[in-house]
């Protein structure tokens, strides 16, 4: 495969053709904030937190779905990018009901971590306080729609790692939400294999092991990566 040369934050970089800007940055040790990206599954560009500036392109581009190109000049940090990341995060918080103090993921949540690492000290938008429920019909797992950021990580692992196709997205706009099978209670789903990959994939407190209380929902992302590596490379290795 042909190699492409580009610069990220002024640093000259060589990346394989077809690689994303996010992969190229990662290999060069440059950290770009992400939320919907999950190692091991394909990217969809849903959250817009990984936006970067590319010289010659007026709009901001998501690093996770933009392919590297010869001579590309990428900027991952600027006043403008920080401004948009703040806006994106604040809108995510305003859209659902995030009450960190009583959330299963408190202290282990990617949204919460992003918020403080991007300097979000308050939300400037009016909170919507929508009415969403919690589905606890499954024997092992629960889904709290109040905490969902619609990253679709659960949908992607369910379809493309587990191959069950239980999880899906229904509705439009602020009424978009995650469903199981034909929008039935999770516990009544025939297709769910109860593998728990969606729970491992979820960045927030939206999917949890039943019985976890405030701050108890920790995940082991390594498990998903292990399965994907084993399948694709026939290597049964863990990251550490």
């Amino acid at each position, binding site marked *: 495969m042909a190699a492409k040369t580009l610069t990220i934050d002024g640093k000259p970089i060589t990346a394989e053709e077809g690689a994303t800007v996010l992969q190229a940055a990662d290999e060069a040790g440059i950290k770009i904030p992400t939320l919907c990206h999950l190692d091991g599954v394909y990217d969809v560009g849903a959250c817009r937190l990984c936006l970067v500036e590319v010289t010659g392109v007026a709009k901001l581009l998501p690093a996770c779905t933009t392919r590297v190109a010869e001579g590309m000049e990428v900027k991952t940090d600027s006043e403008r990018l920080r401004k948009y990341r703040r806006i994106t995060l604040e809108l995510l918080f305003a859209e659902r009901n*995030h009450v960190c*103090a009583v959330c299963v993921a408190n202290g282990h949540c990617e949204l919460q971590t992003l918020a403080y690492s991007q300097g979000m000290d308050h939300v400037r938008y009016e909170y919507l306080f929508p009415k969403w429920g919690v589905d606890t019909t499954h024997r092992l797992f629960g889904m709290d729609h109040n905490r969902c950021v619609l990253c679709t990580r659960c949908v992607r692992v369910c379809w493309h790692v587990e191959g069950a196709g239980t999880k899906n997205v229904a509705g439009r706009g602020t009424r978009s939400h995650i469903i199981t099978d034909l929008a039935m209670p999770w516990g009544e789903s025939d297709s769910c294999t109860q593998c728990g990959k969606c729970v491992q994939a979820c960045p927030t407190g939206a999917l949890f092991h039943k019985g976890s209380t405030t701050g108890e929902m920790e995940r082991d992302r390594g498990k998903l990566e292990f399965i994907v590596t084993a399948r694709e490379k026939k290597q049964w290795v863990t990251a550490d």
Partner: protein
Amino acid sequence: MKVRLATVWLGGCSGCHMSFLDLDEFLIDLVDAVEIVYSPVVDVKEYPENVDVCLIEGAVCNEDNLELLHKIRQRTKVIVSFGDCAVTANVPAIRNQLGLGNRESVLQHAYITNAQDNPSVPKADGIVPQLLERVMPVHEAVHVEYFLPGCPPPAARIKALVGQMLSGVEPKLEGTQLKFG
């Protein structure tokens, strides 16, 4: 001149004030630098004029909260939203999910449905304040200068922000010091 400091408790659990008391020996340094002119821990009935800094705990839940808040804004140079209830409306705002018009249903639930003895909604005009339709974070009602998140903010975080203010630098919390929850 000592800094005229107020601390106020709106719709919150008093946990943020407990965390303030957790400042331990820093409280002794504080006494040299500030005069506490109004607070749940001092016995002053009326919010005074010319307050330099006011730490506000709690969300804006009822008419009294709102009235006091407007008074505070008029009489205070710097307002700090103190803790998650003030910053995000947090737990008190969970009732907002029930939609506007939840005032009656939450009172019904708390004082009638789940009451063991004497089920009745407390009602005394001029004494028991009316709930607002919608619980708000402080900055939705008045302008706020600084934010101190946390449920409650750990004492070290309070110390960091208050310390910065007293030493005359622009207060700025970063990284995990901004963690909610």
